[in-house]
């Protein structure tokens, strides 16, 4: 869920995953670490229910929508720049051009990314990231991971997020309190955007852990194939 807030959690979990992967019991191919992940999920639920979700809800209740939209826009603009870079790394020049166009438009006309005129002009976001680039380069997802406060990921995608955080640009800011505040605002912004979705998951899921895992893995597959994943064979026929 909360992509920007992470850091050491993912690193630790990714490390643990690689170490444990060899000797763990295998409940499922995509999720060999399910017992550990479920424990992490329980921790996450406690933190999310009692801390993160109320903060995100408070943010939505108190901060007017135009300001929240601009906060999202600024972070999205930075993400678009990284999306452009990853489009290039995957050899998708059209995506690179598309996202660079978005960044230039939104940084210029959109006053440093506060506004999103590119979307209003119908230029859709590219949504590329390092995890997808690794996938296009032929690297498999590795074990599925659930990281408290961060949410669902895989060893590959989590590594991609770490690369992203290491490259910046929030990490470049030397002033530690300011840098941490920006990470915090980014995290709250993301969690606030997911409030409606988590209510739907609460209604729809028989087992929220499984529901989120499947949704995450399907979503990533869809993004890796740029919205047109090949059909999986159906089990009932």
């Amino acid at each position, binding site marked *: 869920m909360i992509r920007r807030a992470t850091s050491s959690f993912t690193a630790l979990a990714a490390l643990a995953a690689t170490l444990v992967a060899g000797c763990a019991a295998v409940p499922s191919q995509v999720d060999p670490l399910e017992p550990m992940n479920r424990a992490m999920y329980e921790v996450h639920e406690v933190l999310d229910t009692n801390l993160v979700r109320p903060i995100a809800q408070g943010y939505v209740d108190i901060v007017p929508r135009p300001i929240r939209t601009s906060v*999202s826009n600024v972070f999205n603009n930075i993400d678009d720049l990284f999306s452009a870079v990853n489009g290039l790394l995957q050899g998708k020049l059209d995506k690179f051009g598309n996202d660079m166009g978005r960044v230039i438009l939104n940084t210029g006309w959109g006053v440093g990314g506060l506004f999103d005129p590119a979307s209003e002009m119908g230029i859709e976001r590219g949504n590329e990231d390092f995890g997808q680039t690794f996938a296009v380069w032929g690297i498999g997802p590795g074990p599925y991971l659930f990281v408290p406060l961060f949410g669902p990921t895989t060893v590959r995608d989590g590594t991609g997020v770490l690369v992203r955080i290491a490259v910046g640009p929030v990490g470049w800011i030397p002033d530690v309190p300011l840098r941490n505040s920006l990470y915090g605002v980014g995290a709250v912004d993301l969690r606030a955007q997911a409030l409606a979705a988590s209510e739907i998951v*609460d209604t729809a*899921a*028989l*087992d*929220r852990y499984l529901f989120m895992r499947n949704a995450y893995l*399907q979503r990533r*597959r869809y993004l890796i194939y740029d919205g047109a994943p090949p059909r999986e064979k159906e*089990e009932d026929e």
Partner: protein
Amino acid sequence: MAALERSAWRLAAVVLLAAAASLPVARPAHAEEAPDAMVRRVAQDVLATIKADPLIQAGNEARIREVIETKLLPNFDFARMTALAMGRNWRNATPEQQKRLTDEFRGLLVRTYSGALNQYRNETIEYKPLRMNPGDTDVLVRTLVQRSAGAPVQIDYGMEKKADAWRCYDVVVAGVSLVTNYRDEFNEQIRNGGIDGLIRTLADRNRGVAAK
């Protein structure tokens, strides 16, 4: 003169068709309606009803469910949806179990949909060009939902041609197929408590018992 007469007939036919298309969904008709046209008609109908209904705007959930029951659900093939979500377990279920599973799964989807519609109201839907060959009986109708706030969401509908009309058997939200998503969950429930265990869990959820 003959040409004029022909065009007059054609105009009459178009008007009649348009009138038929605006009739309530429950009518059988529409055998010739293309799947994307059908999705568009139903979606516009549901959204227009929601926007115009003061009870719904006030957050009346019973009324939202009524709209979903009467306008949306007749266009779904719940038996097929449930069979797909069950995978190979479907054939191990007795006809009676299959019926109960379908009813409970339907109930769960109604609850989910009412919750979603309660949150997303001021949205507009863009329809992407349909990729379909003549004679196809299984297509994906792709739409992009533009929200008043937040990123647009791609929602696709898996549609299958039945004897009387097209029916929806899967909804794919931002690349996440509802049917695929339930498959692991159903499997897990069946592994733990058999098919009756799954029926019980679905019934519990529909009575408002929270998921673990």
